[in-house]
Structure formats: structure tokens, C-alpha cells
């Protein structure tokens, strides 16, 4: 009779799951293109080149990210800032900035290497392309707009989710207007592009206390 009782035990498990799912509690999958799952805070998604709130680019063209990259997928060429119309607060800026997303392993070492927190990772993950050339993201696609939103690789594509890109990156507000390390910005984390919103982190004083 052991087999029979095991049989009914199994039927009870699947039956209970059926009831749970039909009543709506047990469902664990989401209807992906329409529904998004909440992404974790440290999600390694598409890269973003950040700006300071005053519109200046954070990247100083130092190529440390390219050096740290284990996949050798970042290509940077720095150039001197034009004196009358500087692009970044430093001496130089990232004149050419390319990331080959096909080679990138999304390890985040470039983010760790960056001295000015210019490159960060967003929560965007939809990066499929029709050909290999399109997978190389250049300055045009990586650099955030002055309002903090991120450009899309194919803005006219019907699958492009522009709403996803509108969330300004948290780094825009959390760091100093000109890269001064002592500056404590307003601790208003509002998430990153890719619909990943999380609760604001406490500022430094609250955290250290």
C-alpha cells in the first residue's frame, strides 16, 4: 500500500499547486514582454556613460576601463578639452568610446576601475541586434542625455521601450557637481534605466552613525 499512498500524496501536491496557481497566489512566471520583474539593485546590465548634473561629462578619457576589461571589449581614445567649451571638468575627455557588447562579459571591472564614476551599469538588458556591427555601442548610445535619460540603439524600432530609458540614473544626483569627493549629494536614489527602482539609500551621516 506504500506505493498507493505515495501516489495520492503526489496527486495532492500537484492538485494543491493547481488550486494555488488558478487562484493567483502560486504563479511564479511573468508575462515578460508586458510584465517586468523587479531587478536587483546590483544588476549588471548595459553600460551608461554618466554626466554631472551641470551637463559635463564625467569621462576623462583615461582608458583605465579599457585596461581593466578582461574581455578587451572597450576602446577609448581621449582628446584634450577645447579650452573655451570644455566637455568634461578635467583636462581631457573621452573622444571615442566604444564597447563591443558581444564581447563584454558584464563583469563590472570597468565600473570599479573608473576614477570618476563615469561608467556605470544600468538595469537595461534588451540588447539584441540584427547584425554584429550594431552590437558595438559608441558614445552616441552610451552617453546619457543632459536630463539623465539614456539613448536607445534603435530609437525607431517598434520593440524599443522608451519608457524604460527615461528613468535618470542615480549617479547623476549622488555625486558632486564637479567631482569633488567631499561633496555629499542628495541621497535620492531613483533607480537606473531599465525599470529598477529601489528604496533610497541613507546619506553618509545616517549610515555612519
Amino acid at each position, binding site marked *: 500500500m506504500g506505493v498507493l499512498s505515495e501516489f495520492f500524496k*503526489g*496527486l495532492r*501536491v500537484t492538485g494543491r*499547486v*493547481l488550486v*494555488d*496557481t488558478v487562484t493567483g497566489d*502560486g504563479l511564479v*512566471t511573468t508575462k515578460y514582454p508586458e510584465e517586468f520583474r523587479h531587478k536587483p539593485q546590483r544588476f549588471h546590465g548595459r553600460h551608461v556613460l554618466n554626466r554631472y548634473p551641470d551637463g559635463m561629462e564625467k569621462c576623462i578619457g583615461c582608458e583605465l576601463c579599457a585596461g581593466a576589461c578582461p574581455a578587451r571589449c572597450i576602446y577609448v581614445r581621449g582628446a584634450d578639452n577645447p579650452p573655451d567649451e570644455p566637455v568634461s571638468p578635467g583636462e581631457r575627455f573621452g573622444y571615442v568610446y566604444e564597447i563591443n557588447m558581444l564581447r563584454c562579459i558584464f563583469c563590472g571591472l570597468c565600473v570599479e576601475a573608473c576614477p570618476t564614476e563615469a561608467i556605470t551599469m544600468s538595469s537595461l538588458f534588451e540588447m539584441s541586434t540584427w547584425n554584429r556591427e550594431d552590437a558595438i555601442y559608441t558614445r552616441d548610445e552610451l552617453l546619457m542625455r543632459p536630463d539623465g535619460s539614456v539613448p536607445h540603439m534603435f530609437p525607431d524600432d517598434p520593440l524599443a521601450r522608451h519608457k524604460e530609458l527615461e528613468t535618470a540614473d542615480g549617479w547623476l544626483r549622488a555625486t558632486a557637481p564637479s567631482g569633488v569627493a567631499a561633496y555629499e549629494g542628495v541621497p535620492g536614489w531613483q533607480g537606473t534605466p531599465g525599470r529598477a527602482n529601489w528604496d533610497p539609500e541613507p546619506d553618509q551621516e545616517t549610515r555612519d552613525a
Partner: protein
Amino acid sequence: MDGIDVLFVIGRVLAVFVLLLVVTILNVWLERKILADMQNRVGPDRAGPWGILQTVADGLKLFFKEQVTPRKVEYGLYILAPFLAVIPAFLMFMVVPFGRPITIGGRQVPLQGADLNIGLLFILAMSSIAVYAVVLAGWSSGSKYPLLGGVRATAQAISYEAAMGLAMVSVVMFSATAGPDGTLSLAAIVERQAGTYDVTIPFLQWADFIPRWNLWPQFVAFVIFLIAIVAETNRAPFDLVEAEQELVGGFHTEYSGMRFAMYFLAEYVNVFSMSAICATLFLGGWTGPTFDGQIPGLLSALLPFVWFLIKTYAIIFLFFWIRATLPRMRYDQLMQLGWKRLIPGALIWLMVSTVAIAFRQFGPPWS
């Protein structure tokens, strides 16, 4: 028999054909949906409302796919095998009554493909032919996985057909006591299950709503029959014939396009037919409360069909439920269950019910 009768016959056969196709479309979707619900998933929900047209989309896709024919196949048998699967599957349902006989213009029209007086034998014969489809497909594909699937199918079908037949025999014997003589006609077997028990024991009077189904006196035969039809239709946990993990789909590995679709269709038609046969033999087929005079005429003509569908789908749901629950059996376990449990069990039950029927008919031997 005049021309109108011939038309009625054609109409009946067409009705059965269309019914089977429609319920197959529904059943594939239903199975995927129920399986999804039992695994905390959503299931198909893109094509049509609740994804109900998913099967139509799948069928269309298969229809337009290339029918790849490997070089090593035995061509004639390779082409024949899918037809051997589909045709018996449809023929099997032809003898199952799916509603009370209706009267149109003074003519009695039984709602079944054909009321054969050897209905049950016909069903056994057709389900045996369906085995040929699997065996021939396995052999003619000229590939080792289909061959293994075919070999498994032979052994499995033979061992479970015996248990199924023995379970049927005890039902036929029991149903012979309810009428003037023994019969293999499914229509007669259904009619003999109509009505409810008239309880004579005073304090059990409340139980007079229990229908006169063969399920109660033949419960052991019902369980054996249920296990046997799951094995007969090659469904989990007895789907060794088409085990995806070990045999890459088994006998239909080398089939693609419409030829594969025919196997798929045959499997689901078989599931429906076998469930319908089970409902007919044990759950009283189309019999049920008639609500005489309380509902309009058309509805009351349709009501037996509704009872039939409800009973059949109850068993189909059990099929899906078992599929979602049990892992596939090992080959030796399958053989042991068939030869060491089911067939002896069915034989013992056959003897027990023979003795019981004899007692009822002739009285105890000592009197």
C-alpha cells in the same frame, strides 16, 4: 433503408469526425494549460482568448513544415505508419454512443457512428492495430531510437491490452446480468446503467440518488482499466515509447511536418476515445438526470451529450493530473506492473465477479 437513412449515416460519421477534431484542438490546449497551472506557470495565452487557438497555430505551422524523409527509411511502411495511427484512432470512437438516440422526422437516429453488436471487440481490434503504427514507424525509420521505441511499444501494448481486455470481460459479464442477455454493444451497456439504485434497506433510503453505474460493483475493474488505458495511449507515466529524454521522441523521431502531426493527432484522439470508452463502460456514458419536462425540448436532447462530455473530461483531467504528477516508469517496472499486478489482479477480479454473478443468478450451491 432509403436515401435519407444513408444521409443520416453520413451525417453521423461526419459529426463524430468533427467532434473528435474539435475536442483534440481543445484537449491539447487544455493539457498545456492544466500542466502549466500545476507547475506554477501561465501556459499558452497568446493565440486567441486564453490562448485557446494555440493548437490551431501549431497545426498550421506543422502543415507548412517540410516533411523530411531520411535516406534509410523503408519508404512504403514509413508513409503508411502515420495513417495506421490516425485511422484506428478515429474508428475507435465510432462505436461509442455520445448521446441518447434522438428522433428526427419519425426516424430513430442513434448518436454514435455505428451501433455494432461487437462494439467492444471492435475497440480492442482497433487499439491493437494502432500498435502496428508505432511498431512499423519504429522499424521503417531505419534509425536506432525509433526502433527502441517500437520494441518497447510492442511489449507494452501486449501486456496492457491483456489487462484491459480482462477488465472489459468482467464489465460485459456484469452488464449481462442487468439485461436479457450478454452484449458487447456499447449502446446496450450504457442503457443498462441508466437510472438509480432503488434502496430497500430502510435506513439507507437517502442513498437512492446513486446512479446504477458499473463503477460501484466493478470498481477493481475500473482501476485496472484506467491504468491500462493510460498505458495503451502511451501517456505519462507509461510513455516509454516516446521517451524524449532517452529516445529523442521514440518512434516518431524521424517524422516531421504533417506526418508527425498525424501521430500527435492520433495520440490525443486516442486519449479522448479511451476516456469516452471508460466513461461509457463504468460511468454510465450519456445517462444522467434528465429533468423531464422542466427544460425545453432541444436542451433535453442535448443534455445526455453534456453528461457524456462531463464524464469523459473528468477522466481526461485525471490523465493530465497523473501526467503532471508521476515520473516515467522504468521498463522493468512497467513489465512487472503489467504482468505481475494488473493481469493477475484482473483475473482474480474476473473470478470473484463470476462467483458473485453466479450466486445472484442461481443462488448459493448449498440450497
